[in-house]
């Protein structure tokens, strides 16, 4: 499998997951391209590098000589590249850019924008040098779940506007890659109602569009801090300050004003949140996709964190391949 598309509801951390997945695929000497499609420069922020130009740049080195390159696709630049590649129109393209014509063309045909983005992804996935693929894997930080099917299903999107001609042929070629077994669309979710709902919706839409759904990645999963035997009782509100008092007295904390009640209130909230998360875990399992959980990081995400997450994904990918 060479093309990993990562989507998820806004706020679920899909950029972080995409970056960690790229690192894990680069372990043991892999060459991986991490692609940004939304012009947010989120990858540059994660890897703490200056904003990425429209150019494949190395952002991280993985163990065993592996490397992750990153590319932020610029739609205008991709259009110029496209004109140059297919029509030998590089200079004309620049003139068009000045006229604002490219902006216009991608605006009148919204599908055209996606064709350019996905066309570039397809090019990277299928690029070969000396008979070998240049990249072992391409990871796409894709648009959110609400737009993902439309983004990948380009032929359908341009069909009203371009019924024939090169754009149509181009988008058919893109679809062939996305629908092939070398592609998997992974959905990132949190154990919260709306992300889980959107994950289910996205999987249904992708399936209907005959696009290959990969794993569901539960991000920011937490462990319960209370003993398992006390969670239900606590969530029901049957924990009182008096239950904690002896232990607080022993720790010489009994004198702090309002402490026991505060701790109880927080414990109850924690237990309730845990129970509702666990119920959602069942809903996620019911989606029937391979599942992996990534832990919530208590500190801001840095490269070290990304490597930790990558290790988790590495284990998951191995079991996936073995299965």
């Amino acid at each position, binding site marked *: 499998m060479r093309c990993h598309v990562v989507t998820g*509801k*806004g*706020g*679920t951390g899909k950029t972080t997951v995409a970056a960690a997945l790229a690192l894990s695929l680069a372990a043991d000497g892999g060459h991986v391209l991490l692609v940004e499609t939304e*012009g*947010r420069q989120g990858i540059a922020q994660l890897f703490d590098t200056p904003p990425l130009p429209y150019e494949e740049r190395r952002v991280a080195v993985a163990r065993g000589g592996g490397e992750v390159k990153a590319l932020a696709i610029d739609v205008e630049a991709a259009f110029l590249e496209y*004109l140059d590649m297919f*029509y030998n*129109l590089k200079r*004309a393209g620049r003139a*068009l850019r000045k*006229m604002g014509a490219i902006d*216009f*063309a991608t*605006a*009148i*045909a*919204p*599908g*055209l924008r996606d064709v350019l983005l996905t066309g570039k992804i397809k090019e990277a996935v299928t690029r070969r040098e000396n008979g070998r693929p240049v990249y072992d894997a391409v990871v796409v930080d894709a648009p959110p779940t*609400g737009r993902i099917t*439309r983004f990948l299903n380009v032929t359908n*999107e341009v069909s*009203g*506007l*371009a*019924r*024939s*001609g090169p*754009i*149509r042929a181009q988008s058919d070629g893109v679809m062939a890659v996305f629908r092939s077994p070398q592609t998997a669309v992974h959905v990132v979710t949190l154990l919260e*109602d*709306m992300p889980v709902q959107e994950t289910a919706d996205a999987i249904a839409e992708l399936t209907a569009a005959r696009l290959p759904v990969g794993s569901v990645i539960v991000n920011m999963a937490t462990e319960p*801090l209370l*003993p398992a035997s*006390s969670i239900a009782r606590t969530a029901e509100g049957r*924990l009182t300050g008096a*239950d*904690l008092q*002896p*232990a*607080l007295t*022993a*720790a010489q*904390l009994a004198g702090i*004003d*309002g*402490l026991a009640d*505060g*701790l109880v*209130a*927080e*414990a109850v*909230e*924690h237990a*309730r*949140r845990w129970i*509702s998360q666990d119920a959602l875990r069942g809903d996620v399992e019911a989606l029937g996709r391979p599942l992996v959980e990534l832990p919530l990081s*208590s500190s*801001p995400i840095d490269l070290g964190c990304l490597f930790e997450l990558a290790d988790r994904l590495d284990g998951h990918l191995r079991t996936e391949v073995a299965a």
Partner: protein
Amino acid sequence: MTAAQPPRRPTPAPPLDLAALVSDRETRIIVCCGSGGVGKTTTSAALALAAAEAGREVVVLTIDPARRLAQSLGLVELDNEPRLVETPGAPGELHAMMLDMKRTFDDVVAAHSTPERAQVIFDNPFYQALSSSFAGTQEYMAMEKLGQLRASDRWDLVIVDTPPSRSALDFLDAPNRMSRFLDGTMIRLLTAPARAGGRAGVRFVGAGFLLFSRIISKILGGQLLNDISAFVSALDTMFGGFRERANATYELLRQPGTSFVVVAAPEPDALREASYFVDRLSTEGMPLAGLVLNRTHPPATTALSATRAEGAAEAVAEAGGPGSKLAAGALRVHAERMTVATREQRLADRFTSAHPEVPVRTVPAAAGDVHDLDGLRVMGEALLAEEGDTGTGTPRSRVLPIRPQAG
């Protein structure tokens, strides 16, 4: 030797008085904006409910709300027309609607042309693409709908939940972009040959443009230019209208009576986006009410720091005895809460350092999703209640209390 300067601390932002804002009869429009996934829709609905309970006739325009929120408002079929939400006991009225951008576009076309011409436009493939997926159509149509709602005078308060754009700024730019597009040189040029009757038009538009139109034909297929041309001539009389209405709505947003509420979550990305928005509003001279910092995690007590709570948890667990595991767990829960709250407070302080004039109201995360009127009421209380009126002594504009100045 000069005296040591006391360390500079972020000054607390002025309180955000949303209770006064929603009950003030002079407030006619509230626009909630912010990046995706921060709870804009819920905030809009909670403010709308609070306004109805303050006796206002309010309509909330939401963009693609969570299904369960729509359902809980009693609106299984939330659609492009405002519908009354049952709010027992409220002196005012709450209406809710969900923007359907294609329907709104169709309605505008139908309202400004004859039925025959409208049909020609509806059948045009270019129109179909434009009305359903043009980047910016949703933002533009949200503005169009806002203009209609405000003009009808049926409601004395309109609350708008802005579309989940890639950037929160798209909402402000949309009217301009759309009218620039429909009224723009490029579209005129593209259709100029048809309008001017062939050759005369060609002479007018010049060589650069011919190249462009050749490329467009080549790439997208020749029929696209024909479709655009047919569309433009069918819609010709409406162009001015689009621009005028978009400008009028834009101007409306700058009038007294409009307030923007920026919504963010205590995450770096969301606050960065909020920061851009605040700067942009001030550049455009648009009235900002303040920032709602949603989904914060204030601890129930701040008497024990994270470090001390961790230490105590260890001590309690080591000492053992009945209830020690539970107590140690509770202390760890507290340590985590303090860590999270400290980080959230630091992010909020950074925002305030950059925008000291912007009032902030923090809103604690609900234990689950808000999906009924009761949940909205709870959120409304957190949004509207008085600054100092909390059980924990932490003012509502903060996640943690202000520490006393050292020395």
